[in-house]
């Protein structure tokens, strides 16, 4: 039991470290990567919690986390790749850097 609680606290600490990457990360892709890492950590916390209380039905929440979490990440990635590409083309065309709102 102590191992499970210790691993849970370890996961929380790791999430805080990934949050540092989200806040500081130089490019937007580092941030998206850190979102994915935090999602997996949250899933593992839920699984450990269900394991401590010995209840199999709590694992349904973990499954829906894994299944629906990736859709948001992929959507943000697609949107941002298109946007970055367009901005780079515009900068090349005009020969100067455009003011970046995003």
């Amino acid at each position: 039991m102590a191992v499970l609680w210790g691993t849970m606290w370890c996961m929380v600490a790791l999430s805080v470290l990934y949050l540092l990457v989200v806040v500081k990360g130089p490019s937007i892709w580092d941030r998206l990567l850190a979102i994915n890492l935090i999602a997996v950590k949250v899933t593992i916390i839920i699984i450990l919690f269900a394991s401590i209380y010995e209840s199999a039905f709590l694992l349904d929440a973990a499954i829906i986390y894994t299944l629906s979490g990736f859709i948001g990440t992929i959507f943000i990635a697609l949107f941002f790749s298109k946007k970055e590409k367009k901005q780079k083309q515009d900068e090349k065309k005009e020969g100067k850097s455009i003011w970046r709102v995003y």
Partner: protein
Amino acid sequence: MIYAILVLWIFLAAIIIPERRGIRIIIYFAIFSLVTALSFFLLGSPDVAMAEAAISTFSTIFFVICFEKHFRLKADGEGDPEKKEVSKAAAAKKYVLPLLLIVPLFALFIFFRPGPEVSTYLKDLYITRFAQDVGGVNAVTSIYLAYRVYDTLFEALVLVIAIVAVSHMSAFKEMTVPDGEHSDIERDGLAVFTIRIIAPILLLFGVYLVMNGHISPGGGFQGGVAVAAFFICRYMIYNIYDMPVKKIIRLEEVLFMTAVAIAVFGVFLGAGTFVPLEYLRLYQESYLILMNILIGLKVACACIVLFYRFVAIERR
């Protein structure tokens, strides 16, 4: 444990306030939804956590589409806007004046918050009696399908009204488009192959949540949103422009009317009054499963229509 997560939660809510760049707001919002769902789970309510985890996907996608639209329109609207220098007095007026309003309100709320004595009469009643009154194992599903079924029905009505409002507020009047933007990973063979494996699992899991709502966490709302998330996967690898949207809206209205009829029928034919005792269990279980399926299909239809509206029509 819960306090560590809640401190993280406060930090994530506070970090959005000074942020000016849209994509970072979306990213912080996504993590905020994740942490919120985790703390719901740790507070002992997996049903709400599942609903939040599934629905935050949809709201994230809506925000992404909103930012994309804003970016494009602004790009061809104003040329290159200069970052305006605001004077110190204007900034102080903008940031300090709300603070002067907020802090007294906050103090009032802290001062007059309800005391620690919480009445547990209703909780004890529901927990001890729901198994024989309604049947089922999941107390939450039993409450929102039997004791509080009219709340649930009005919530379903709100979704219908939301679809009407969305199509009324929009700049476009048409409900369907023949073709539009496709997603980028359609030509990426590896991703298409993998999502083809995942998407049926998602659909199957949504159906499992709906059908098993009365004996495990889940139910109509969560399962319906998971079924609707299947159609996001379909958009990513194929397209959604061949979907019969008008038929889906019609189906949603019919499902809503059926749910209302069954709820009224269930109230007037109350369990145990007319049904013989040996069939009571069967009656209760079939009522729960039927209502879950109806509400799940209804929520799935509503989410699909909203997603179609945003991706196909508002995005043009």
